[in-house]
């Protein structure tokens, strides 16, 4: 493909998108918080009403929210900004919930962001009222949205620091549902997720991505892998075709019973695709183990004892990926 044609196409697409955007009336004011149904009144005194009960108690510890942006008086757009509805910006008008009860009267419910009682779409809608930026632009249609995973299933806005901001706590949250990944990261070969040296969101965009199924942060699997493994990116003089197409042809991302996150160990993995004249697909057996006649095709790095440059070679004599 000629590069200038691609640039023209790119430019055309850009203009289409940009012209649409610029055609709109600019509006920089933050969105108004959603209000509740007309029939429910607001509380008498806002947060002062709420904090009479919801103070430092351990059942609903809300006070740490005051060190977070969600309860900043000085920030425009904060639920606690001047003229904002404080707690009721998010929880909705809660006058009924907060009123003094008569003997035997049950306290009226409020919108508590409780996935047991509140629809995920309603919870998400509250959050997205303010947080619908480009990083959450692919939320609709993503696997989490389709599976009714709401924002509060992972995030805690009342905490001093949202656990999802800490790599270890984030990983523990994710594997709370993704149990197979929990088992994977404890295998002998795994990315360093178990103790939080890496976080799930180093690779995944949990709020939605152009790859709607795997929620990858980059456009393709390979582009994502090359972020940290740029030495594999090439292009190489001698390429290994499956490497250029999809790293996951040979590797599994979360954990493996085999070294280097390989889906299987060599030589069988390599023999899935290689059976050449002069270097046939030999059935290596246990006779090649140390107790027998130790085989160079089987032990140590197996096929990679010789074909070490499986990700590509830049040596002029490297067509067999051995240099």
């Amino acid at each position, binding site marked *: 493909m000629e590069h200038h044609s691609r640039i023209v196409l790119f430019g055309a697409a850009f203009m289409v998108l940009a012209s649409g955007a610029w055609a709109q009336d600019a509006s920089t004011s933050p969105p108004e918080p959603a209000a509740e149904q007309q029939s429910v009144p607001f509380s008498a005194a806002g947060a002062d009403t709420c904090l009479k009960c919801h103070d430092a108690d351990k059942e609903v510890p809300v006070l740490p929210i005051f060190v977070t942006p969600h309860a900043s008086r000085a920030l425009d757009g904060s639920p606690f900004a001047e003229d904002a509805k404080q707690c009721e910006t998010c929880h909705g*008008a809660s006058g009924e919930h907060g009123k003094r009860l008569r003997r035997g009267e049950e306290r009226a419910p409020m919108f508590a962001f409780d996935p047991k009682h509140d629809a995920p779409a309603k919870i998400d809608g509250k959050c997205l009222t303010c947080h619908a930026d480009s990083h959450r632009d692919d939320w609709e249609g993503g696997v989490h949205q389709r599976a009714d995973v709401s924002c509060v299933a992972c995030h805690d806005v009342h905490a001093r620091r949202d656990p999802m901001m800490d790599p270890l706590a984030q990983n523990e949250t994710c594997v709370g549902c993704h149990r197979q990944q929990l088992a994977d990261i404890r295998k002998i070969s795994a990315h360093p997720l178990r103790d939080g040296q890496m976080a799930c969101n180093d690779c995944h965009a949990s709020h939605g991505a152009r790859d709607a199924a795997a929620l990858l942060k980059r456009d393709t699997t390979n582009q994502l892998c090359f972020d940290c493994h740029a030495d594999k990116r090439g292009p190489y003089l001698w390429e290994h075709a499956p490497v250029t197409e999809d790293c996951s042809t040979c590797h599994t991302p979360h954990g493996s019973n085999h070294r280097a996150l390989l889906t299987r160990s060599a030589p069988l993995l390599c023999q899935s695709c290689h059976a050449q004249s002069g270097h046939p697909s030999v059935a290596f057996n246990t006779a090649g183990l140390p107790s027998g006649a130790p085989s160079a095709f089987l032990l140590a790095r197996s096929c990679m004892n010789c074909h070490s440059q499986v990700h590509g070679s830049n040596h002029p004599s490297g067509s067999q990926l051995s240099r």
Partner: protein
Amino acid sequence: MNIDMQRLGTLLVLLGSLLVAPPSRGEDADAPADTPTDEPTAWTCSTCLYPVGWTGSYDVGADIAFGVTPWAGRYTGLYKNTVYPVLDANLLLLEEDGGRWEFIARDLGLDSRSLSLVHRRPGDHRYAVEYRAIPSLAAEGTRTPFAGVGSSTLTLPPGWVRGDATTDMTLLPGALQPVEIGTERERVGASATWFERRGFTTDLRAATETKRGTDPMGASLITRSTILPEPVDQVTDSFEAGLGYKTGPWNVEARYRLATFRNAVESVTWDVPFTALNPAATQGRMALAPDNDFQQFGVDGSWRGAGGLKLNASVSIGQGSQDAALLPTSITPGLAIALPRATAAMDVDTTLAYLRASWPVSHDLALRGELRYDERDATAPLDLFPQVVTDTYLAPSRSSVVNDYAKTLARIEGDWRFSDLRLLVRGQRLITDRDQGSVARNDEDSISAELRGPMFGVLEGSLEVAHDRRGASPFVPLAGPAPQNPALRYTNMAPMQRDRWSASISAAPSERVSFELRIDGRIEDYAATEVGLTDHDDTGFGADLNWIAAEDIAVALYFQHQTLGYQQAGSQGFAAADWSALSEDATDAVGLELDAPYLTENLGLRAELALTESSGQVDVTTGSVDSFPEVSSHLMLIRIEGRLRISERYTLLLGWRHERFDSSDWAITGVAPDTVPGVLGLGEIDPNYEMDIFELTLHITL
């Protein structure tokens, strides 16, 4: 790839026509349906804290380690039985105007340490600098006779006695020295974001990451090989810029990314320890990963229309290049043949375009559709390169080959809700075209249906079934001096049919108890493959039980099992299949967690017991079945953490972590550097350890 050009053009026209459609005005999907009439005009809050100044906490203490091994600390640096300082911090400086400084430090006493300093004023800006280091040990117990580890030249001891086999190398036993095979990454990054200024959001990010150390690398001379400690001294730099604009129903972002990779070691030269077929081949030389650059421009956009219609679109083009100077054909005297060009001169263009529409047709029905186009288009002079096989002899020249592909995906999905049930139906077609290689085209069709909803009044259930079918254009075996067996089919390109299913049930019989049972599986059938992978299956099942045992005491119990099976066939005679192999991996993970943050007013407790067992079995059948020893790894983890609150400001953290890890892999078990006559190895050993770490830390709140 003219056909790809047409396809891309079609996609863009479609994309453009949808996006230029006039947005409906006066309708906002987010607008509330009802507005209260008695909204307060002004609330003051006398009980709100609104703190200003320093807040946060820091941890000071010690980890005392017993029984650790290099593998136990492969990602942390907890290598030795000693005392490691605990230095963590989570400090905030809150400013009057809502701005905030955030300083996070983690594991400063370990090699896996991280620091970040952020100043942000949400809605206005965010500035951050970050540092992160991660060690990574690749193998344990490794030894090598080579000197110069870490450099580009690996030399054998003076007077080295070469041999045809490792047992003939009489100086080897005395020359072996411990060598660490592992790397350390250090990443420094900075970013700045300015939010929604006149509708624009600007985002700048830059990072540099160094990776230094050694990796294991096989280096062969015909039928003899040496596993070398490959020197690693690499730097990856990246820069990203984004300019977003948001107004009304539109959200548009233009972005640019540049990533460069620089390798300080272009090649490694080593003394050949074996007796070479070519007496002049006393050294070998391996090319290491070349410097490369990648840059990408992209525009993303979304538009929210009437009735909740949402369109997302993205177009990005990228270019990768690599023009490293090429090494001579061989380091062996007399085998340095003139090259057709001096540098690699490789370029790759990438194109990705996608369009996704999400349309809630009604309260009960939502439709989603997606088009995606992903192309890799490589360009390089197709020259004939003389081939010196492993620095030993001259072989016929080979033409360099580049790999192109174009993948086009179309997906449509319906999401129906009727009564309490939800039905998701999805259809998808993926077409992969290739300019080179044995399979020019794959077509993969998928269809799936998922039903979710309440069952029998108390249960929530889901059931998903799916079927995929991949077709392939005729297989063209690679020709040349070593042709591929025509009976072979490449796993990732072979015709294949796949059935997938998953099911789960969950329930919360009381406010205190909930559970989930789940099962999933898939079976892949490569019916057209005679040599290669013929069958693959993946079965998993698991269970979760959550129990609120008492106020502030939560107990969780989980179990997960997975079995992966692969059946393949091979041909030893370059003809029909004459052997088969079955490899099967199984993993079981079980865990018990207890979380009691307020066991008493001042005491919190958290405990975990986790067991993970993985095993791998390989059976090779050539008339009779030959079973390999089991590949296995077992991890037992016990962790108990206590929080004893001493005062408003001080909390004592007490922890005990016990880990026992056993593993065995026949590829390395009992394989010393000289075990394989034709391979001078590193003598890697199976990782096994039983460690205890005691933590005593003071958590100080500001």
